[in-house]
C-alpha cells in the first residue's frame, strides 16, 4: 500500500548511498565495487520520489522507462512488480542500472535535483533487476503467434540484444550472429567485471535464449557469410549492430613497442579472455608496475583500474585537455581517484622509448594549453613549445577512442557509409540505404553509451516489425 507522503518531510531522507568495497580492498580483486541497496534502503530512496504529474525523468531516458511508476512499486514493496514495469521498456535493467550515465539523463532532469540531490534512479533500477534475478522469478512473457519472418541480428551488444528481445516477442524468428566466442559485445569484452559482473550479462543472454532467440557465436559476418548471403539463406531483415570496434592509436614514434596496448586489447585480454586469472586461463597479459593510460573516457578509467588490480604500483591517466573536458562519468573518475589513479592533465605523449627487446620503458610528453574551441565545442589543446619532458612507464594503454570496423561494411555492397566509415542510417528508424538492412548503436553514431545503443535497437525493432508485417515489399 502506498503511504501518503507528508509534505515537507521529504528533505529528511537523504539520497541513499550504496555500500561498497573500500578502495584498499577492491584494488586487490575484480569483484564488483558497490554491493547495491538493501530492500530497506531501496524503499527509503523510493520514498524520495515526488511522483511528478509531468515527470521529466521519462523524457530524460532514451528508452522512456516509466520511472515514477517503477519507483512507486518499490515504495510499495512490490519489487517484482517494479521489475515488470521496468522491463516493459528496458530489457536489460541490471546492466543499465550499472552503466547508464544517469547523471546526464533521468537524474539530470529530476525536479528534486534542483534544490537537493536527484532520486537515485540508476541505483533503484539496479536493485530491482538484481532482486528479480535473485528471486529466480524471471518471468517469460508471452509471445505473439509466429509471423514466419526471420530476422538476422549482427552483433550481440546492447543494440542487438535489445532488438532481438523486442522482435522475438512480436513473433518473429530471430538469430543473433556474434563474431566473438561469447555474447554481449562491449558488455563482455570491454566493461570490466568490477563494474559489470559477466554473470549478469550471461543471465540477460540466457533470458533471450529462453524466449527462443537463436544465438550463433564464432560468426564473423562479412567473412563466414555476408549480409547478402543472409538474405539468400532466407532472412527477411538484417540488423547491423557491430559497434565501433576499431582501436585508434596516436600515430607517434615507438607506438608498436611491446607493452603498449590499445584499450580494446588490454580490456579484451582481461575481461573476455580472463587474463587476470592466468595461468588458470591461458591468455597472458603484461602486468606493469608503472602504467600510463592515454585518454580520459570511461574506457580509460576501466583500463587504469584494471591495471591497479593487476598489480600496478603507479597508474597515471595522461590527458591532453583539462579536467572539465574529461568524457568519463564523474562516478568513474571518482572511483579511479579513490583507488589512487593519478591524473596528468594537459599533457600528451610525443614518442615512446623502448629497450633492446622492444619493450616500452618510457615516453616523452609535452604540456598543452587550451586554445579556441574546436568542432566538438571543446577548447582545442595546443602544445606548449619547449615543454617536453620524460616519464617512465613499463606499460601503456591507448584509450583515445575507437573508429568503425570496416570488415562488414566493406563486404556489403549498397550500404552507404559516411566519411568516417560509419553506416549511414536514419536516426529515428535505423534504416540504411540498403533494402532490408537496419543499423544502430556505435556503428552509426560512433562511440556512445549502452543505453543509446539500446534505444537505437528498440527503434529499429519497431521499424523492422512494421516492414515485415507490411510484407516487406517497399523500401524505404
Amino acid at each position, binding site marked *: 500500500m502506498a503511504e501518503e507522503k507528508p509534505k515537507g518531510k521529504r528533505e529528511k531522507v537523504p539520497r541513499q548511498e550504496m555500500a561498497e568495497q573500500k578502495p584498499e580492498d577492491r584494488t586487490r580483486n575484480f569483484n564488483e565495487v558497490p554491493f547495491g541497496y538493501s530492500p530497506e534502503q531501496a524503499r527509503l530512496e523510493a520514498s524520495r520520489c515526488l511522483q511528478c504529474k509531468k515527470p521529466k525523468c521519462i523524457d530524460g531516458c532514451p528508452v522512456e522507462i516509466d520511472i515514477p511508476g517503477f519507483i512507486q512499486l518499490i515504495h510499495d514493496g512490490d519489487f517484482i512488480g517494479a521489475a515488470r514495469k521496468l522491463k516493459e521498456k528496458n530489457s536489460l535493467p541490471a546492466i543499465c542500472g550499472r552503466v547508464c550515465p544517469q547523471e546526464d539523463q533521468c537524474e539530470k532532469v529530476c525536479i528534486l535535483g534542483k534544490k537537493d540531490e536527484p532520486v537515485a534512479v540508476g541505483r533503484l533500477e539496479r536493485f530491482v533487476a538484481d532482486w528479480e534475478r535473485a528471486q529466480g522469478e524471471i518471468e517469460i512473457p508471452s509471445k505473439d503467434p509466429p509471423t514466419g519472418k526471420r530476422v538476422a541480428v549482427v552483433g550481440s551488444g546492447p543494440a542487438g540484444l535489445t532488438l532481438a528481445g523486442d522482435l522475438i516477442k512480436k513473433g518473429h524468428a530471430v538469430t543473433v550472429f556474434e*563474431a*566473438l*566466442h561469447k555474447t554481449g559485445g562491449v558488455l563482455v*569484452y570491454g566493461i570490466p567485471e568490477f563494474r559489470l559482473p559477466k554473470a549478469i550479462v550471461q543471465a540477460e543472454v540466457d533470458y533471450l535464449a529462453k524466449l527462443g532467440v537463436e544465438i550463433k*557465436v*564464432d*560468426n*564473423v559476418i562479412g*567473412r*563466414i*557469410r555476408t549480409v547478402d548471403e543472409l538474405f539468400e539463406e532466407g532472412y527477411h531483415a538484417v540488423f547491423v549492430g557491430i559497434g565501433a*570496434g*576499431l*582501436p585508434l*592509436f596516436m*600515430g607517434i614514434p615507438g*607506438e*608498436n613497442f*611491446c*607493452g603498449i*596496448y*590499445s584499450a*580494446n*586489447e588490454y580490456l*579484451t*585480454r582481461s575481461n573476455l*579472455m*580472463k587474463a587476470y586469472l*592466468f*595461468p*588458470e*586461463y*591461458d*591468455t*597472458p597479459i*603484461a602486468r606493469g608496475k608503472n602504467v600510463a593510460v592515454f585518454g580520459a573516457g570511461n574506457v580509460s578509467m576501466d583500463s587504469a583500474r584494471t591495471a591497479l588490480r593487476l598489480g600496478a604500483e603507479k597508474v597515471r591517466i595522461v590527458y591532453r585537455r583539462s579536467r572539465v573536458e574529461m568524457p568519463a562519468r564523474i562516478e568513474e573518475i571518482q572511483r579511479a581517484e579513490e583507488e589512487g589513479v593519478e591524473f596528468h592533465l594537459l599533457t600528451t605523449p610525443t614518442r615512446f622509448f623502448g629497450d633492446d*627487446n*622492444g*619493450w616500452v620503458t618510457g615516453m616523452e610528453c609535452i604540456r598543452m594549453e587550451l586554445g579556441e574551441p574546436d568542432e566538438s565545442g571543446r577548447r582545442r589543446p595546443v602544445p606548449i613549445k619547449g615543454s617536453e619532458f620524460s616519464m617512465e612507464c613499463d606499460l601503456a594503454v591507448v584509450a583515445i577512442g575507437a573508429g568503425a*570496423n*570496416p*570488415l562488414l561494411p566493406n563486404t556489403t555492397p549498397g550500404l552507404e557509409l559516411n566519411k568516417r566509415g560509419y553506416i549511414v542510417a536514419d536516426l529515428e528508424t535505423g534504416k540504411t540505404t540498403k533494402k532490408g538492412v537496419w543499423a544502430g548503436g556505435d556503428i552509426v553514431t560512433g562511440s556512445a553509451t549502452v543505453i543509446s545503443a539500446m534505444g537505437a535497437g528498440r527503434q529499429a525493432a519497431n521499424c523492422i516489425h512494421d516492414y515485415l508485417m507490411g510484407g516487406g515489399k517497399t523500401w524505404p
Partner: protein
Amino acid sequence: MFKIVSKREMAERTVCEFDIVAPDIARKAKPGQFVVIRANETGERIPLTMAGTDTEAGTIKIIFQVVGKTTALLRSFGEGDEITDIIGPLGIPTHVENLGTVICVGGGTGVAVMYPITKAYKEAGNHVIAIIGARTKDLLILEDEMTAASHDLRVTTDDGSYGHHGFVTDVLKQILDERDDVTLVVGIGPVPMMKFLCKMTKEYDVKTMVSLNPIMVDATGMCGACRVSVGGRTRFCCVDGPEFDGHQVDFEELVKRQRAYLTEEKASLDRFTEQNPE
C-alpha cells in the same frame, strides 16, 4: 563445438594435422586465409592457418607446430574430440593470378600455409617452382602434396640429411641466378627465414609476398595486438593481411612483438607438461 574427424602426427610429433568438421568455414575459405581457435573454455585464442578444405565433407584441415601450451593441448586431442571455438575464415585471401613464373618458398611449418597457395598459383596457370625446407629430414612436411601442387619441387635440409644441404634461400638464389622470368616469390616460414629471403629478393628486384603470423586476440580488427609496420605504416595483420609486400615489412619489430609473452608462454607450457605427463 567443432569435431576432429582425423588426426595425423608428423615431423617427430612436433607437427600435427587435424581434419575438423566446420562446414560453414570450409565453404568460404580461400587460400591464404586462417582461423582462430580456442581449444577449451579456459583457452586462449590463437590463429592457425588452414592447409586445405574439403567442401563435400564439410571439413577444414589445420596443421600446427607444437610450440606452447595451446598447441600441446591440441595435440593431446584425438579423433572424435571437440574444439570449443573455431572462428573463420579470417584475413584477406591470397591474390592469385597468372603472373608467369612464381616461386613458392616454405620453411618449417610454413609449408602448411604454403601448400594451398602453391596449388592455387598452379591452377591459375603459373609455372610454379616450390622450395621447401626443414632442419632435418624427419621434420620435413607435405613433400608429396607440394610435389603435386607445383611443377618443380626442390627440397632442402639444414643438416643435409635430405635434398640440398643448406637453406631454402640457397636454392632460391640459384634459381634467381639461372632465370630472369621470375615474377613473384612467396615466402612463408619462420621470421628469420622470411627476413633473409626478402633481403635477397630485393637485390634481384623480384616482388615478394610473405604471410605473417603475429600474436592475435580477436583477429577481426578489434584489438590491434597483431599490428605490424609495413612501409612505415601500422597495419593490422588480421584484417589487412596476413600477406604483405615482404620488402616493406619491419621484421625486427615483428620478431620482438612475437616474443612479448615468452615468459608467460613458458610458464604455461611447463605447467601443462607437469599436469599432463606423457
